[in-house]
């Protein structure tokens, strides 16, 4: 998808003014925090597991080349193939070549953020291959021709009435007068419609929550079972994964999985956790005949050794998103690309450029809630600050803002001048603001007073009053 992150402010205004979106956001965001909290409270070892997760990911990154090569060796050993792709373009071409090799007409897809990142659906359609999203949320937004608004709940910005509308306009083979009021009915309808598509698909594409070097396996986690039908029924299973998904062993993957569901949905464990290794074995009655792993770099290897390396620990649980007050206010689409919320505010500038996505790392109060819930302890605010540093170095922030900052720093490093100037300013402000106690508007403070009053200062500065007190004390 074409990023619209540069239009973040306009996106925000639109989101804040969209009453339906705000209702849906309100409904959805209520559940995430409490569900995660109760799951975490139920597991006394959770904090220690976070530290374990951080350690496992860090140690893996230190030897990333070794683990990727080992992974490939084991995938090959079990009859699969790894495709190393530097760019989204290479990944798309690799997928297309595999699809063409069996003259594929339709492709079923489990949920994959990498597929979004490489804009796979549009590409397949351009090449006369029909992609069918099978995760219910992804299916809904595919029908609506819109991108996901959340990592794990892609249609969470919609109300059930909107789902009913798009089902009615898309499933024209069904009775137009049918009732679509209940979510239960909507789920059943999607199940009915998608079942034959699962059975007919030539190729199944899934993402991966982990790649396991020890065994050459990919692991996916779903609640619906769509990923399993996607990867079991067609002749070919393609796994889309970015290279930082690798972990050394099954035990390491298990630790990540213990963190994942609790952080994401507050479940003890997701309904289906599936490990796949190669194509079907001799004698197997089902399963794919071919197993391919598209291993995507897309700039990730270049994050190693930089201030953004910690981001490569991310397991895409969405806890940072679910606990972000900015995301809660504006939803996912405002961020303008595939990855929303705090993790997106760090990753998106890397993937689409800081000139495009410069707003995202700035649109944070650094409240730190994201870091406090991150299952692998990624210092998200710190990395957003690193982006601000890059922007500052590249002079990407607006000139008046930069001027204001320099002026403040100039004054702040000259205490006497600072005290003289601010002392006068505050006394003037205090005199004008005394009666009402606050200002409805102030010159040069429109950003503040457009939405709230500016409380008036008390009058004299602490420093001047303190000096007086010290003098009086000395004089006694």
């Amino acid at each position, binding site marked *: 998808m074409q990023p619209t992150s540069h239009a973040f402010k306009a996106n925000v205004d639109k989101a804040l003014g969209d009453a339906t979106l705000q209702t849906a956001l309100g409904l*959805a965001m209520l*559940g995430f925090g409490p569900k995660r909290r109760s799951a975490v409270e139920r597991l*006394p070892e959770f904090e220690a*597991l976070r530290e*374990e997760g951080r350690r*496992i990911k860090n140690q893996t990154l230190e*030897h990333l*080349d*070794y683990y*990727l090569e080992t992974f490939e060796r084991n995938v090959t050993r*079990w009859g699969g193939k790894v495709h*190393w792709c530097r760019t989204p373009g290479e990944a798309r071409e690799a997928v297309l070549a595999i699809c063409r090799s069996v003259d594929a007409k339709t492709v079923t897809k489990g949920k994959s953020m990498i597929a979004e990142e490489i804009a796979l659906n549009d590409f397949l359609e351009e090449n006369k291959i029909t992609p069918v999203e*099978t*995760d219910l949320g992804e299916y*809904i937004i595919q029908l609506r021709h819109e991108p996901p608004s959340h990592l794990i*709940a892609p*249609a*969470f910005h919609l109300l*059930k009435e909107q*789902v009913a509308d798009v089902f009615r306009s898309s499933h024209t083979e069904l009775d137009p007068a049918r009732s679509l009021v209940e979510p239960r009915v*909507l789920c*059943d309808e999607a*199940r009915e419609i*998608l079942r*034959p598509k699962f059975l007919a698909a030539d190729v199944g594409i899934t993402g991966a929550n982990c790649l396991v070097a*020890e*065994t050459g396996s990919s692991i996916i986690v779903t*609640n*619906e*079972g769509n990923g*399993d*039908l996607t990867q*079991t029924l067609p002749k070919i299973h393609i796994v889309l994964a970015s290279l930082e998904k690798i972990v*050394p*062993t099954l*035990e*390491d993957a*298990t*630790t990540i999985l213990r963190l994942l569901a609790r952080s994401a*949905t507050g*479940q*003890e*464990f*997701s*309904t*289906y*956790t*599936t490990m796949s*290794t*190669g194509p079907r*074995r001799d*004698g197997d*009655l*089902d*399963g794919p005949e071919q197993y391919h792993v598209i*291993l995507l*770099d897309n700039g990730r*290897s*270049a994050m*190693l050794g930089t201030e953004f390396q910690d981001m490569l620990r991310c397991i895409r649980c969405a806890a940072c998103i679910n606990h972000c007050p900015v995301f809660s206010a504006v939803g996912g689409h405002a961020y303008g690309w595939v990855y929303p919320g705090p993790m997106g505010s760090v990753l998106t500038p890397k993937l689409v450029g800081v000139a495009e996505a410069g707003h995202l790392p700035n649109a944070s109060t650094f409240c730190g809630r994201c870091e406090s819930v991150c299952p692998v302890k990624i210092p998200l605010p710190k990395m957003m600050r690193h982006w601000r540093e890059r922007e500052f170095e590249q002079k990407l922030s607006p000139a008046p803002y930069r001027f204001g900052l320099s002026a403040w720093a100039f004054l702040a490093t000259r205490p006497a001048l600072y005290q003289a100037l601010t002392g006068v300013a505050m006394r003037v402000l205090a005199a004008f603001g005394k009666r009402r106690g606050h200002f409805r508007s102030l010159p040069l403070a429109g950003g503040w007073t457009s939405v709230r009053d500016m409380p008036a200062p008390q009058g004299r500065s602490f420093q001047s009053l303190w000096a007086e007190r010290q003098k009086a004390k000395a004089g006694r």
Partner: protein
Amino acid sequence: MSGREDILGGIRKALKRGPLDAAAAAVLDARLAAPARNLIPARATSLDHPGQVELFVAMAEEVQTTVDRVAALADVPQAVAAYLASENLPADLVASPDPVLDDIPWAERPMLRLRRGKAEGGDKVGLTPAFAAVAETGTLMLISGPQNPTTINFLPDTHIVVLRADQIVASYEDGWTLLRQRQAAAGDAALPRTVNFITGPSRTGDIEQRMQLGAHGPRRLHIVLVGDGAAERPAGERPG
């Protein structure tokens, strides 16, 4: 330069080193050859086996799995028939060709019609054994193979699993250990294409975050739990 060499070269450049030397690689090889366990929560490992069985049942029921406990394999046909009747389900089942299921006296319930093989689109009820089960979260561990097609776990609306209580282990790690022991015993070919950890019936919260059962996989997951696990597992099958 190929993508592979380019990516690996880029990683090494970023890590400020060349390919790992033989000694460093040997250390990592050794780690992979004998995978260490990370922290495992005490929830299940602190219990004795009967306690783990109870925990398994409680955790499974918490996620809408139904569990029926019977004393012996001989009781399974009656339990399955009763369950199907109570849920108003047909008595036609697709069942794994696993010989484990042959030990069950199905003939005593001639109303139950078992077809052995992989599942097809029209199958309503599937029946499988399990490889193991994890007490920690009430999770079943199923593996694929010529006798255990994966489709049975997902295509039918109802999935019935025959599980012996002595198959219940504390943790997923115990499950991996059992899998590795099986692989070591049978040779390399024994690493299955698919390992399914299943924790309750299929579900989705994608519409207004309200949970609905039966999204794409089974609407019902029913476990017939056989025995109390008191009989010792054969020593060779004991995990870690």
